[in-house]
């Protein structure tokens, strides 16, 4: 068996690692090791025990366990006596395809102190071939690695960790459990458990209702009021409803107790106290009716206990179900991760799990296949459907050199690409992390809710007690029965859940919906702020335009145009500025050979200078020429004309004398004009920010239709411009590429970065548009408005529900209208109010971005 694990570090590790001792050589004899392997190919459960026995017979294996259900094998072995290959060999003999699945190994790491070490160790360990994921938990001081057994030298892992200055414990501290259940599984389990409780409580409810009110159900003859028979039947109901209280309502009491110990009260407290009060009252009435002034007052309310429990539990079950749908977006994203990839290794094309693709692998993609990781096309071309990541509905044409994004679908042709990002660095992984983080953040609007909910449940209990006292003291006869009904109804109708759920659920759906449309919203705060915006500042280059300018005009003062362009292009030879590249490309496309340039210097916001063939050449805008007191002369008119056309005139000066103008224009993106119009129709002021001169800026502003253009803004003063607008009381979103204008993005109320499709984790941005189109800005603002509207509906509904429901339950309508709520109706209302909130939040799932 061959291992690739012998050459220890590949290109992913840091350069300093080369100075470290060769991994493995410093390793002494290892203690016992424990590994866990997937044995997915095991044909039947009966194979497990013989396989374990066979493994244990191997010399050096101390213990082997094979679990046919989880399909995992755990082997404890002495690495000095047996290699991991031998173990895998046995597994392979039995038809288990070990090479295709990852094993997990968890070890204690000692000496870890700082959070920065974590990343260092992870990176170093991930550099060991065969390891596809390493994560260090600082709190538990453990390292968990996921690796392909066939390709991994575990001694190298140990060596690598040592080289970083830490040590691995002798053996895994605990077995690695099977992968944590997905939220979906947890939800499903919770739902089933609640539904079982519901059916039980519902089944008990029917006889309980019938026998609690024999008169209504025509059994007055058999069970006359105050008869001994009726008392016995009621006693039986008490016994029947006790399991409802303890089993179906058991979680209320566990929650009640846990909350009580923490000096808090919640929904469990309210429901738990309510149904227990009804049951206890009834039981006292059955056992010692003599306590009541009149025999007919010794009524029972077992039906309240049973029916309220049934309804509330049903409500909780529906809520769990609905909540599951709220997190659908993230599950969809996770589900996008492809399972396998075809890579070329050793000249042969093999199929491997997608998570085993390493940097630099050449991956083959056929039509209809999902692209496994991020990369760059090296051969072939195709149209790729990127809608699931960027939200762009039309397939994108891809050629050699173009980037491809993992999880997108290849439509038409076949191609090969080189993997440039794998594992948790892929765009999809970054998106998933960002969305998860954002869905867990809080929107500022939640603050009021938090304040209310911290006082809510105890306040309801006080209200219930006051209700009881007032009804008992001043209410009609039978006072004790009315007082009890009011007490229970108040406790039950109150719904702190609807309040608590309102914001987070909508936020979760809204942020998830954004991700589906290629809009990554960093936090609840960002989502909330985005709906209050009144001004959108657009950085011109790369945002409104394609960011790829080209030479449109060359004006020569005296010499010929080719010379002007040649000088300009020669200067720009060393430049990476887009304008420079455009000029170089313009010269090359006209067949002009460039001269040698030295002493290149960029003058930010103004231009560049260099020495070309011994001549001092300066290329730049008018300001630069004026600063240097160069005579612009007749060229001023030409420059003005070009600027009026929205082009950027660049003066070319040789040895202090201006010889001509090279005009460069950046073309607008196709949808810029429409997008700006839509933004204005949405009531937003659109401002353009550009380093261009006033004329150019105005020309473009007119063509695009923006309200205002801020011209001649130097890159470093963009943030100041934002501050100036903010000082005028505007709430501003700044839209830029996230790299050159990071300070401005950070300064704005909302920074929106136009992603390049390959990097979405743009720090300065509150919102990242995966696909660099202004349409995303519109969708983001629409989504923010829709989500905030939804949140406000939810909060309004929840506040109104509680502030109407509670007084009515307390009997405020009774003196005037004789209306008193039944606890059963209260239970139904309460159960469905929280379901309504979650359902309303789920309506956001139907959000469709309106076209521009």
């Amino acid at each position, binding site marked *: 068996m061959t291992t690739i694990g012998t050459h220890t570090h590949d290109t992913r590790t840091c350069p300093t690692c080369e100075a470290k001792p060769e991994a493995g050589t410093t390793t002494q004899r290892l203690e016992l090791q424990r590994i866990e392997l997937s044995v997915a190919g095991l044909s039947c459960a009966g194979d497990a025990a013989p396989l374990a026995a066979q493994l244990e017979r191997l010399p050096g294996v101390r213990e082997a366990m094979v679990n046919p259900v989880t399909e995992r094998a755990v082997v404890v072995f002495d690495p000095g006596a047996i290699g991991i290959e031998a173990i895998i060999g046995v597994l392979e003999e039995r038809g288990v395809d070990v090479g295709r699945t990852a094993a997990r190994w968890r070890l204690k790491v000692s000496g870890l102190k700082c959070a920065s070490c974590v990343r260092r160790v992870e990176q170093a360990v991930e550099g060991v071939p065969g390891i596809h994921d390493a994560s260090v938990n600082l709190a538990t001081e453990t390292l968990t690695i996921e690796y392909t057994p066939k390709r991994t030298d575990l001694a190298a892992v140990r060596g690598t960790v040592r080289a970083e200055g830490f040590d691995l414990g002798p053996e895994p501290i605990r077995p690695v459990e099977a992968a944590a259940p997905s939220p979906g599984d947890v939800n499903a389990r919770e739902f089933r458990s609640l539904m079982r409780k519901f059916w039980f409580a519902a089944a008990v409810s029917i006889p309980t209702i019938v026998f609690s009110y024999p008169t209504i159900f025509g059994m007055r003859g058999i069970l006359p009021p105050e008869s001994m028979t009726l008392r016995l039947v009621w006693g039986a109901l008490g016994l029947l409803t006790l399991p409802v209280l303890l089993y179906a309502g058991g979680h209320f009491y566990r929650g009640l107790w846990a*909350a009580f*110990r*923490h000096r808090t009260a919640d929904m469990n407290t309210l429901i738990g106290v309510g149904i227990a009060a009804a049951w206890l009252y009834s039981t006292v009435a059955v056992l010692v009716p003599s306590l009541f002034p009149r025999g007919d007052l010794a009524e029972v309310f077992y039906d309240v206990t049973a029916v309220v429990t049934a309804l509330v539990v049903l409500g909780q079950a529906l809520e769990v179900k609905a909540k599951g749908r709220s997190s659908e977006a993230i599950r969809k994203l996770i589900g996008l991760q492809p399972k396998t990839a075809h890579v070329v290794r050793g000249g042969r094309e093999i199929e491997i799990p997608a998570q085993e693709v390493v940097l630099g692998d050449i991956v083959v993609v056929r039509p209809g296949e999902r692209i496994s990781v991020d990369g760059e096309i090296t051969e072939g071309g195709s149209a790729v459907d990127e809608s699931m990541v960027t939200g762009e509905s039309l397939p994108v044409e891809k050629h050699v050199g173009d980037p491809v994004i993992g999880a997108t679908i290849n439509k038409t042709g076949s191609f090969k690409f080189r993997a440039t990002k794998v594992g948790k660095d892929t765009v999809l992984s970054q998106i998933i992390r960002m969305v998860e983080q954002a869905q*867990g953040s809080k929107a500022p609007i939640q603050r009021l809710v938090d304040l209310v*909910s911290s006082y809510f449940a*105890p306040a309801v209990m006080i209200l219930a*007690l006051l209700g009881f006292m007032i009804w008992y003291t001043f209410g009609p006869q039978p006072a004790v029965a009315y007082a009890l009904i009011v007490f229970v109804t108040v406790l039950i109708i109150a719904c702190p859940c609807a309040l*608590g*759920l309102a914001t987070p659920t909508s936020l979760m759906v809204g942020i998830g919906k954004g991700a589906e449309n290629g809009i990554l919203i960093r936090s609840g705060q960002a989502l909330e702020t985005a709906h209050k915006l009144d001004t959108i500042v657009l950085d011109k280059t790369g945002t409104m335009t394609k960011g790829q300018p080209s030479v449109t005009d060359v004006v020569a003062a005296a010499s010929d145009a080719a010379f002007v362009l040649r000088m300009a292009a020669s200067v720009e030879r060393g430049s990476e500025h887009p304008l420079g590249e455009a000029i170089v490309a313009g010269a090359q496309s006209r067949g002009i050979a460039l001269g040698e340039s030295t002493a290149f210097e960029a003058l930010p916001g103004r231009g560049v200078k260099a020495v070309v063939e011994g001549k001092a050449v300066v290329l730049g805008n008018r300001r630069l020429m004026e600063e240097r007191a160069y005579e612009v002369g007749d060229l001023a008119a030409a420059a003005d004309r070009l600027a009026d056309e929205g082009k950027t005139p660049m003066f070319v000066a040789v040895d202090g004398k201006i010889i001509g103008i090279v005009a460069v224009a950046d073309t607008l993106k196709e949808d810029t004009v429409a997008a700006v119009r839509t933004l204005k129709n949405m009531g937003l002021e659109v401002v353009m920010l550009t380093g261009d001169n006033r004329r150019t800026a105005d020309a473009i502003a007119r063509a695009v239709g923006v309200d205002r253009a801020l011209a001649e803004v130097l890159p470093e003063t963009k943030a100041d411009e934002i501050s100036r607008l903010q000082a005028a009381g505007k709430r501003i979103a700044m839209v830029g590429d996230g790299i050159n204008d990071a300070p401005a993005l950070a300064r704005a109320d909302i920074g929106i970065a136009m992603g390049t499709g390959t990097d979405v984790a743009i720090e300065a941005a509150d919102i990242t548009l995966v696909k660099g189109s202004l349409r995303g800005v519109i969708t983001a603002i629409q989504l923010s408005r829709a989500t905030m509207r939804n949140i406000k509906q939810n909060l309004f509904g929840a506040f109104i529900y509680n502030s109407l429901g509670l007084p009515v339950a307390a009997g405020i309508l009774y003196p005037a209208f004789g209306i008193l709520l039944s606890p059963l109706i209260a239970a139904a209302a309460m159960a469905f109010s929280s379901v309504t909130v979650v359902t309303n939040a789920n309506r956001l799932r139907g959000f469709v971005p309106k076209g521009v």
Partner: protein
Amino acid sequence: MTLDKVLVDIVGLATIGVIIWYFWLSQSRGVLAAVSGGMQSALIVVKGGYTPDTIVVQRGRPVRLIFRREESALCSERVVLPAFDKSAVLPEGEEVPIEFIPTEPGEYPFTCHMGMLRGRVVVE
């Protein structure tokens, strides 16, 4: 007013008093975070609430709160520490650290996603 009514009202008012005192007025004293290697850390068990729910730390030193969730109730699935812009998903049974450096003395609450469970960090 008959005697039973007076009794009911007295007991009721007393209960209200107890509720107000127990849930709102009294506060647990809190637990001092353990200090090791310059890091102040505390383990918080999440089960129907946070135990301990008040952590006392010194300012200026990094704090590591380690959360271990011992229940499956969805409510406590996530812990949020808004003042430090931190939040974490708490898989059942796993220890999840949250780290931050408090600079200003004061009380900083941490809550579950819905704000029902509450705890606080007291920075001295």
